[in-house]
């Protein structure tokens, strides 16, 4: 380290208009005297050194640069290629079913492989209902938790709690399913089910018999699984609201809730919608946990206690047992539908989230 007590050589006296031109030559002279003679190295010979020769002969590396750049481009394009390939094989393999049923495939409500009748409506129904109920359960909780972590939680608890909520996302689907089968299903059957039937049975949504497995249990599992996605992304979006906006509302004498409602939620709402849609995308495609608790029966029923079936779980359950081309191709067409729906849902969500967080980075710049 530089020795701080060492006397600092006077650099130059302030260059005023009068003394600058005079002062400078003096300085040059004194520094020349001090600098040059004790140079540690004699002047270099004119012979180029080993190193210089090596570097002069070294190629410009244009070929290597071009190859490397091309290689990286190929990696990047492979993402395109993967998506294209997925679309291609799904479309090609679902052609028999597309030919046989056309659009009726999605409106027909009977799925009977034995008689060769294939209609996907029960699965669409099951997917939509279970995902929407999951959203209804998860969104308020996720938003409240996001608000808690951003505004209310004491600083030292913030990191551990957000780590724990995000850990929910790291638990594999099949472990949720296992827990669902052995813990949640009995709980739904013996405790929560009768309670819901008593309090909300009049709506027609919760009607006995309740075996524990069914749409509602699947929705609860889904809600737990999509919660971390919605919570962490809406937290990012709310954090992107400039502090000045919040302060403006607080300066008007608003309470914390009013500040949140007017300063934060109003500014972040597009991004929050994006976060919710992203959660929906995750719920639509979720497979294992749902398959294990939903009951796997292609029924269309308003009763949430009734067993259901989703697009993803019918593929998981029947794909390896599918006999006959039409059966297999119907399942692949279901996969195609699921793919297209999640692509659209995710694209919308990404655009909404981008719209908010990108605006923020521009504000910072």
């Amino acid at each position: 380290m530089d020795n701080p007590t060492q006397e600092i050589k006077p650099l130059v006296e302030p260059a005023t208009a009068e003394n600058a031109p005079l002062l400078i030559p003096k300085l040059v002279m004194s520094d020349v005297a001090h600098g040059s003679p004790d140079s540690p190295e004699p002047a270099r010979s004119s012979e180029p050194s080993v190193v210089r020769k090596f570097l002069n002969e070294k190629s410009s590396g244009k070929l290597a640069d071009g190859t490397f750049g091309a290689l990286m481009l190929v990696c990047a394009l492979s993402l395109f290629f993967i998506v294209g390939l997925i679309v291609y094989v799904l479309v090609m393999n679902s052609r028999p079913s597309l030919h046989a049923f056309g659009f009726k495939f999605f409106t027909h409500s009977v799925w009977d492989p034995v008689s060769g009748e294939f209609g996907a409506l029960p699965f669409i129904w099951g997917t939509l209902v279970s995902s929407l109920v999951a959203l209804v359960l998860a969104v308020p909780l996720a938003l409240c938790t996001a608000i808690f972590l951003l505004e209310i939680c004491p600083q030292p608890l913030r990191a551990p709690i957000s780590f724990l909520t995000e850990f929910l996302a790291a638990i594999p689907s099949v472990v949720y399913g296992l827990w669902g089968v052995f813990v949640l299903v009995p709980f739904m059957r013996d405790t929560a089910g009768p309670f819901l039937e008593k309090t909300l049975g009049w709506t027609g949504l919760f009607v006995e018999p309740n075996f524990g497995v069914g749409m509602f249990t699947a929705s609860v599992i889904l809600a737990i699984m999509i919660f971390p996605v919605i919570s962490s992304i809406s937290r990012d979006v709310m954090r992107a609201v400039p502090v000045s906006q919040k302060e403006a509302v607080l300066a008007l004498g608003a309470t914390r809730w009013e500040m949140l409602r007017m300063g934060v939620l109003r500014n972040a709402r597009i991004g929050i919608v994006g976060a919710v849609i992203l959660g929906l995308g995750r719920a639509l495609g979720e497979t294992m946990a749902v398959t294990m608790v939903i009951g796997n029966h292609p029924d269309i029923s308003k009763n949430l206690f009734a067993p259901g079936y989703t697009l993803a779980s019918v593929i998981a359950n029947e794909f390896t047992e599918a006999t006959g081309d039409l059966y297999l191709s119907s399942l692949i067409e279901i996969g195609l539908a699921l793919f297209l729906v999640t692509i659209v849902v995710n694209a919308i969500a990404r655009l909404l989230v981008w719209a908010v967080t990108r605006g923020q980075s521009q504000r910072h710049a």
Partner: protein
Amino acid sequence: MGVGIRVENLNAWYGPTHTLKDVSLHIPANRATALIGPSGCGKSTFVRCLNRMHETNPTARAEGTVMMGDLDIYKDAAPVEIRRRIGMVFQRPNPFPTMSIYDNVASGLKLNGFSKRRVLDEIVERSLKQAALWEEVKDDLKKKSGASLSGGQQQRLCIARALAVDPEVLLMDEPASALDPVSTSKIEDLIFQLKSQYTIVIVTHNMQQAARVAENTGFFLTGKLVEFAPTHKIFTMPSDKRTEDYITGRFG
């Protein structure tokens, strides 16, 4: 030995902005040449054009002739070949943060494919001695990262790194502007010692620094080279009124 640089009618643009206008000058070998001028006058752009560093910015463009000895740097060689012969020290010290001190100094050789251990050891030691850093770091050459040094030490490390490839020309873009006075004076001493062996071009916004280290000084203003002359002449009897105004502090 260093070689001289002859620049003729050099023009440069960043996007639509014309930052360097018809600059011609001759930079003599084995001397220090200072470039001064207010910020935004084009002096940094000028040195970046000398080793074609401006090309790393996709919107930048340059026209004109730059001869290094007999080599036309825009016609006869690829940018990487030019940069291997012309070392550069930047405004802010920029050691490679994940490399040890040793690897930082050796990087110009190692990453260009030079792998003779014994030669590398010698060069690292010699370069660090030339940069007056050897005594301070010799005990933890391979233990400490380049980023763990102080600002002044980091800049001397960057100088050692530039010297290790045995360049013919050394470009310094305001090498001391981010440093404290003690470190600044060390860097200036260094330039003084190095200029007998290398052609040095130093950009500075500090006129006293130019006066202390350079034989010749050029004054830039709004992209043009206003005056280029021996340093004592620039600072005692400049021939251009604008130079005089700037030197005496009447400018801006």
